C-alpha cells in the first residue's frame, strides 16, 4: 500500500466502519466485531506510514477544494503520525473496554454509541493528517459534533446540562476565535498550508502576532487552556469509555496537537522565539497547570479529579510548546503520547471501579486494592506517569520539557513544573494509599471482585504501554526529533 493510499484510508476507514456498524446494529456481536476489526485495520494502516515518515518522507494527498484555493488536503508529518498512532492504537484498547463497560452496565443505544465513536475517530485521523488549517478546522468541528451524542449519551437532565456546556464552549471558541484566526492568516499569508518554519515571516508586527496567537490558543478550546476549560469537567457526565476518548484518545489530544501544530507550522518556533508579545502564553499555561492541580486536589469525585488533572497536564503541552526550544517541542510531542497512555489507564480504572463496585468518590475507595488488585495496580502506574516518575512514560516527556526550560533559562516555567509535580503527587498518591493500605469499611453486603474481563485486559494493556514507552522511547522519539528540526 502506498503511503498516499494509507493517508486517505485513515479517515475513510472509520467512516466506512461507522456505516457498517450502523447497518449491523441489530446483531450486537457482529456490531462489536465490526468495531474491533475497523480499529485493528486502522492501526495497521497508520502503522504502515511509520517507515516512510521516519525516513524523512512527507507523503501528501490533496482532494477537491473546500474553498477556492483551499483544498481538503492530508499529509503525514511526524507529529501527526505520532498522534494518529496513539489515537488509533488506543481505539483498539478502548473498543475492548467499551464492550465490557457497555454490556456490564446495560447501557442503552449502544449502536449509536459505536457509530459516533467511529465517526470521532475518523475526525481525529483527519485532524492528525490535516495538511492545512482549513482541513484541520473542518475535522476539528466534526470531532466536536460527533462526540456530542457520546457526551450526552445518558440523555438525562444532567447529561443535557453537561452537553450544553461542552458544545457551547467548544463551538463558541472555535467559531469566534479559531475560525477568525484562520481567516486572518489566510488574508495575511495567502495560504493555510502547514509549512515547516511557519507561513507568517515578517508579514505581521510583533503586537499583531501576539494577538493572532491569542486567537489561536484560546480558539482551540479543546486544549482546555483556562478560562476555557469548563467543558472538560462538564463532559464527565459521559460513560467512562467516552471520558477515555475525550481525555486520552481524541478530543483533548486533538486540541493540544493543534496548538503544537499551529505554533510549529503556522508561526514557526524560530519566528516566535524572538518576540515579546507572546510572553503571556507560558504564564497562562503555567497558571492553568497550577490552578487545575489545586482544584483536582480538592475534588472528592474521582472522575472530576481526573478531569482537572487532564486540564493541568494539557497545559504542560502548551507550556512546552510555548517555551519555543527544540527540546521542549520534542517534550510536547512526547507528552501528548505519554499523557494519553497514562490517562486512559486512569479512566479505565475509574470506570472499572464504577462498574464493579459502583463507587465514584475518592473517599469510598478504602481497601479497594485488595478486591481489585489488577485495576488498582494499573491505576498506580497511571498515577506515577502523571507525576512523572520512572519507570513510566510521563518521566520521558517531562524530562524533555524540563530540559527545554533549563536550556532556555526559563526558571519560572521550571518552578511551575516542579511545583505541579508535587501537587500531582499530592492528589494521586493518597488514592493509591487508600486503595492498598487502608482497611476496607465494614462489608456493605455488596461483594464484588474485578470488573468484566475485557475491561481488565484493556486497562492492563494500557498500563503496560505506559511502562513500555519508558523503555522503548526511541520509537516516538525518532518522530518527535524530526519535529525539532533533526
Amino acid at each position, binding site marked *: 500500500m502506498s503511503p498516499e493510499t494509507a493517508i486517505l484510508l485513515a479517515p475513510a476507514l472509520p467512516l466506512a466502519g461507522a456505516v457498517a456498524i450502523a447497518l449491523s446494529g441489530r446483531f450486537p456481536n457482529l456490531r462489536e466485531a465490526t468495531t474491533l476489526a475497523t480499529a485493528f485495520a486502522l492501526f495497521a494502516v497508520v502503522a504502515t506510514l511509520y517507515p516512510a515518515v521516519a525516513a524523512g518522507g512527507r507523503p501528501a494527498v490533496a482532494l*477537491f477544494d473546500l*474553498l*477556492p484555493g483551499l483544498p481538503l488536503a492530508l499529509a503525514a508529518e511526524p507529529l501527526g503520525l505520532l498522534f494518529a498512532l496513539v489515537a488509533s492504537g488506543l481505539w483498539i484498547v478502548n473498543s475492548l473496554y467499551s464492550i465490557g463497560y457497555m454490556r456490564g452496565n446495560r447501557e442503552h443505544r449502544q449502536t449509536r454509541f459505536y457509530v459516533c465513536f467511529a465517526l470521532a475517530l475518523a475526525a481525529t485521523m483527519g485532524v492528525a493528517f490535516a495538511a492545512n488549517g482549513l482541513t484541520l478546522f473542518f475535522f476539528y468541528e466534526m470531532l466536536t459534533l460527533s462526540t456530542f451524542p457520546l457526551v450526552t449519551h445518558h*440523555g438525562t437532565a444532567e*447529561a443535557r446540562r453537561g452537553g450544553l456546556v461542552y458544545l457551547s464552549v467548544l*463551538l463558541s471558541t472555535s*467559531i469566534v476565535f479559531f*475560525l477568525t484566526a484562520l481567516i*486572518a492568516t*489566510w488574508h495575511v499569508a495567502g495560504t493555510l498550508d502547514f509549512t515547516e518554519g511557519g507561513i507568517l515571516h515578517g508579514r505581521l508586527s510583533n503586537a499583531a502576532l501576539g494577538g493572532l496567537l491569542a486567537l489561536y490558543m484560546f480558539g482551540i478550546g479543546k486544549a482546555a487552556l483556562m478560562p476555557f476549560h469548563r467543558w472538560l469537567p462538564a463532559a464527565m457526565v459521559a460513560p467512562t469509555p467516552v471520558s477515555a476518548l475525550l481525555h486520552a484518545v481524541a478530543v483533548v489530544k486533538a486540541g493540544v496537537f493543534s496548538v503544537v501544530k499551529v505554533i510549529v507550522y503556522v508561526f514557526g518556533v524560530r519566528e516566535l522565539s524572538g518576540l515579546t508579545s507572546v510572553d503571556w502564553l507560558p504564564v497562562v499555561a503555567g497558571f492553568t497547570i497550577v490552578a487545575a492541580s489545586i482544584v483536582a486536589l480538592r475534588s472528592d469525585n474521582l472522575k472530576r479529579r481526573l478531569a482537572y488533572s487532564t486540564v493541568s497536564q494539557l497545559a504542560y503541552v502548551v507550556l512546552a510548546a510555548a517555551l519555543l526550544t527544540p527540546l521542549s517541542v520534542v517534550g510536547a510531542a512526547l507528552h501528548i503520547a505519554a499523557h494519553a497512555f497514562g490517562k486512559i489507564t486512569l479512566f479505565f480504572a475509574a470506570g472499572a471501579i464504577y462498574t464493579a463496585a459502583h463507587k465514584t468518590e475518592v473517599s469510598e475507595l478504602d481497601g479497594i486494592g485488595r478486591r481489585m488488585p489488577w485495576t488498582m495496580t494499573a491505576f498506580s502506574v497511571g498515577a506515577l506517569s502523571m507525576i512523572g516518575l520512572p519507570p513510566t512514560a510521563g518521566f520521558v516527556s517531562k524530562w524533555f520539557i524540563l530540559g527545554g526550560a533549563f536550556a532556555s533559562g526559563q526558571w519560572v516555567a521550571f518552578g511551575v513544573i516542579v511545583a505541579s509535580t508535587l501537587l500531582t503527587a499530592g492528589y494521586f498518591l493518597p488514592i493509591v494509599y487508600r486503595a492498598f493500605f487502608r482497611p476496607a469499611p465494614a462489608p456493605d453486603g455488596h461483594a464484588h471482585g474485578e470488573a468484566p474481563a475485557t475491561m481488565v485486559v484493556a486497562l492492563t494493556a494500557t498500563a503496560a504501554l505506559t511502562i513500555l514507552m519508558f523503555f522503548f522511547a526511541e520509537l516516538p522519539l525518532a518522530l518527535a526529533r524530526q519535529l525539532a528540526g533533526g
Partner: protein
Amino acid sequence: MISAHLPVLQVVVPLVAAPLIVLLRRGLVGYVLAMAASAFVAGSALSLLADVWHGGVISYAIGNWPPPWGIEYRIDAANAFVLALLGVIAVVVAAYARRSVAAEVPAEQHYLFYAMYCLCLAGLVGITVTGDAFNVFVFLEISSLSSYVLIAFGRDRRALLASYQYLILGTIGATFIVIGVGLLYMMTGTLNIADMAARIGAVEARRPVLAALAFLTVGISLKAALFPLHLWLPGAYAFAPSAVSAFLAATATKVSLYVLLRFYFTVFGATFVFDALPMGGVLIALSVAAMFVASATAVFQADFKKLLAYSSLGQIGYITLGIGFASKAGLTGGVVHLFNHAVTKGALFMLAGAVALRLGSVRLDRMDGLAKAMPLTCAGIVLGGLSLIGVPGTAGFVTKWYLVLAALEAGSWTLAFVPVASSLLAVAYVWRFVEVAYFRPPSAEVARLSEAPPGLLLPAGALLVAVVYFGIDPSLTVGAAARAADALLAGIR
C-alpha cells in the same frame, strides 16, 4: 429556435399555466402543470446560467422592439445565478407541495393554490430577468399579490391577518419602488436599466437622484424584510401553508435583494452609493442589528416556524452585510448566501411542515421527545440548523468565511467578529429545538406519531444534500457567486 426565446419563455410558461389551471379546475391537473412549469423554469435557468458562465450577456428584445425603446430581458452572471436558484427551489417545493397541500388546503381549492403558485413563480422570474425598471414593479406586484393569496391559504385564521399586514406593507414598499423608478425616469428619460445606468452620470440635478435612491432603498428593504422593515415577515412565514413558507423564505426575499443589488451596482453605481454616500455604513449597521436583534428574538420564540422566520431575518442580515462591504469578497459572500440560505431555510420550513402534518402544531412545547417518533425529520432539522450556525461541511460555513474575509479586507477586526459572534445566537436557537426534541421524554401525544411521509421528506432531503454538498465542495456556488460579483462590480464607473 426555441432556445433563443428562453428568456421570455420562462416567464410566459408559468404565466400561461396559471389561467389554464383555473380554467381546468382540477387539483391534480393543477399540480402537474405547476410542476411542469417549475421544471421548465429550472431547466431553462440552468441552461441560461451555462450560457453566461463565461461572462457573456444575453439580451432579448420583447416583440423585437430593440432596447431602449422596447422592453429588454437581460441576463448576466448575477441574475442567471438567482434564476437558477429560483428554478431549483420551485421544482423542489412543487414536489413537496403535492403531499403538503393535500393536508393543509381544502381539496376544492387545490387548483387555485397551484394557479397562484405559478403566478408567483412567473412574477419572481420576471423580476429577475427583466432589464426594464418599470417591468420590475409590474412583476413585483404579480408575485406579491399572488403571495398574499398563498399566505391566506393558511389554516390558522391568523394567516388572514398576516396576509393583510403583508399586503399593506408590501404595497407601500412596491409604491416606494415605483416612485423611485419614476424619479429616475424623469431625470434620465429612459426605463431601460442599462440605458439608465449609462445616462445617470450625466444628470446634473443630484437631488432627485438622491430621492430616487432613498425611495428605492426603503421600498426594496420593505420587500426584502431588511431590519427594521421586517414586521410583516414573521407572521407571514409562520402562518402560511408549509409549502408557501418554504417557497417564500427561499425565494421572495432573495429576489428583492437581487433587485437591491441591481439598482445599487448597475443603475446608481457602487462609486455613487458606497463612496459618495455612506450607504455602505448604513447597510452594515442595519445588517449587524438584524444579525443580533433578530437572531436573539428567534431564541425566545415558542413557535418553531416563528423561530425560523426570525432566524431568516438574521440571515438576511448576513447577505446585506456582504453587500455593504461592496467588495469582491463581500459580494461573493452575500450572493452565495442568497443560495446557501435559500436551500437551508427551504429545507427547514419543509421539515417544520412535516412536523405540523404529524403533530398538528409547531409549538416547541408540544415537541417533547419528537426525535424518538420522527428521527429522520429531527435529524434533518438539526442538519439544517448546523448550516444556519455555519459549521464547516455545511453551506453556511462558506458564507461566513467570505464575510469575515471581506471584513478583514476592509480592515475592520470588529466587523470580522460580527458574523462569527452572531452564529453563537444561532447555536442558541438551534439548541432550543435539540433540547426539546432529543432531551425530553416523549409526551403521550408525541409517542403515537409516526415518521413523516416520503413525499415530504424526500424534497427536504434533496435540499439538505445540497446544503452538505455545497458546504464541502462549493466550487459551483462560489464560482457562480464570484462571477455575479464581477458582473455587478463591473458597473463601477
